[in-house]
């Protein structure tokens, strides 16, 4: 499997958090270890010392996950507007468009994972912290609806700060819009798998990210409703060290498995295979 060159693609949108400018050295935000950026990248952007899973771009995720050359992007023209005329929002959108080379915070399309044909959505965290506004909601629903009409499974990689504040109530409604579409997948018995990556919070964790038939999470990801500081904790309550992480959510029953980035692809392959097998009894 010649996937060795995927990391070179990242310069296209330059959103890799792992790399310092010029890309020679990389400092781990968790353990502080300084490594050769190339070593980190070769290690799927995982810190060689502490196993910290760095944020990666949607392109990098596609390369890691999909069978070579199998991914075809859809709905590439959909992008956010500024319906509320929210201060500075247009500028922020433009900055992120330049920074990531993306029109909005999610990439959707058709691909294959270990030979399984599948509709895939991947959050682009570098774009407005992966937040869900009208464009993201629309792209997700179109992904679900296309998968529904073709009776094809869906895999969603989430990474999001939640609903996009600058689109006000319009963005809150994307929670209802996307969740309603998952109900259609349920009724049609279409497999829907969620892969939670760092960070998945707010209105995204409280809608489609929590509704997968199967939910797996990369280790150490931040996962929760309100941030550690935002939630109002009761007096005297000591938060566990791992509050609002993948491990915390796994312990609380919100996640099926914590899967190391190196195993995500094969895990998805196995799940898709398992879910698409014909039933053993006649209906």
């Amino acid at each position: 499997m010649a996937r060795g060159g995927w990391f070179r693609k990242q310069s296209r949108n330059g959103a890799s958090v792992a790399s310092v400018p010029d890309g020679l050295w990389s400092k781990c935000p968790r353990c502080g270890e300084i490594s050769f950026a190339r070593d980190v990248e070769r290690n799927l952007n995982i810190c060689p010392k502490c196993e910290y899973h760095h944020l990666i771009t949607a392109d990098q995720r596609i390369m890691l996950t999909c069978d070579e050359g199998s991914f075809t992007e859809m709905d590439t023209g959909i992008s956010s507007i500024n319906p509320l005329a929210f201060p500075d929002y247009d500028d922020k959108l433009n900055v992120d468009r330049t920074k990531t080379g993306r029109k909005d915070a999610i990439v959707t399309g058709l691909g294959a994972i270990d030979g399984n044909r599948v509709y895939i959505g991947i959050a682009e965290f570098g774009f407005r912290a992966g937040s869900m506004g009208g464009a993201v909601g629309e792209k997700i629903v179109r992904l679900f609806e296309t998968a529904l009409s073709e009776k094809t499974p869906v895999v969603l990689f989430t990474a999001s700060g939640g609903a996009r504040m600058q689109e006000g109530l319009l963005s809150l409604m994307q929670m209802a819009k996307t969740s309603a579409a998952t109900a259609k997948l349920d009724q049609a018995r279409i497999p829907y798998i969620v892969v939670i990556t760092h960070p998945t919070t707010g209105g995204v964790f409280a809608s489609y990210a929590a509704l997968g038939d199967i939910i797996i999470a990369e280790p150490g990801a931040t996962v929760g409703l309100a941030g550690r500081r935002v939630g109002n904790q009761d007096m005297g309550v000591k938060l566990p060290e791992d509050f609002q992480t993948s491990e915390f959510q796994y312990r609380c029953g919100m996640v099926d498995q914590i899967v190391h980035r190196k195993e995500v692809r094969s895990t998805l392959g196995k799940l898709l295979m398992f879910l698409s097998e014909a039933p053993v009894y006649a209906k």
Partner: protein
Amino acid sequence: MLNNPLDFEKPISELDDLINEFKNATKEPQMRADAETKGIDIEQQIAELETKRDALMQQIFSNLTPWNEVQMARHKDRPYTLDYIRAIFEDFMELHGDRTNADDPAIVGGFARFNGEPVVVLGHQKARDLKERQLRNFGSARPSGFRKALRLMKLAEKFSRPLIIFIDTPAAEANLRAEEEGISSTIAICLREMSVLRTPIIVIVIGEGGSGGALGIAVGDAVLMLEHAIYSVIPPEGCAAILWSDRSRAPEAAAALKLTAKHAAEFGLIDEVIYEPVGGAHRDHPQIAESVKSAVTRHLDGIKRLSEEELIDRRYQKFREMGRWEDTDFTSAVVHVTNSE
């Protein structure tokens, strides 16, 4: 008349007090006699003061800022869910418990009759005195509250009872325990299940529509909103903290978020604004209850005529169409990403 006047209501409240003093005076023979000998017509004085107050009220309330609307939505004298249930419904029988581990007092609900017809009614419940406010968790529902709500919704579906739901919450509870008990997952499940619930759902935002905590029980066939209610993706204080690291700039954030009923209607996110008496719902509970009742009756009559299939399709489409974006790629050209060298 106002127990907890807001700053901008104080001139009105002062006139209210004065009017009340005069009214009390008319009840005392000694005072009446006094006034008569001095040639003062108390009734006329009262009428003049009332005219003055009403004009002042009209003036103040036609110039409310978005922040004033936030204050109004959170007003401590504002009628809450149980006030509406008592005023509009008959035979309310409260039902309790999520059938898992708790009963959340922040959400109330049960069977009732609406215009004589059996329905299920539920909503967030705030409270006025400190002890009850704590009991109700200030209207912030925990996972068990959403589970109870969903349980009542399923009951409504099973027995073909229309659902009438009142929204009034600052936000969902998000503390350690709520996270442990799956607050996000529970809200998500409510959103999904409401979208396919086979019974009519009428939602009325009566006060604060606080983000996911509100929407979690607000996926309705008709969503109505009181004139001085708010509905927002984030509390203005939280928005100000994120944008400017300064919660005191909440009034600016309130303006930017366009969280008023008028805006929600403009964006097509609600079906009707229910107008309040001048001065706000809290000045005349019976009148606002009547307005809510007639709006709910009207919407329910229309929605009840739909078949279950039509109902579900229509609800899906309603939320499906929410959101604004642009598509610069009508030709649906595809971009190919390859991972070959």
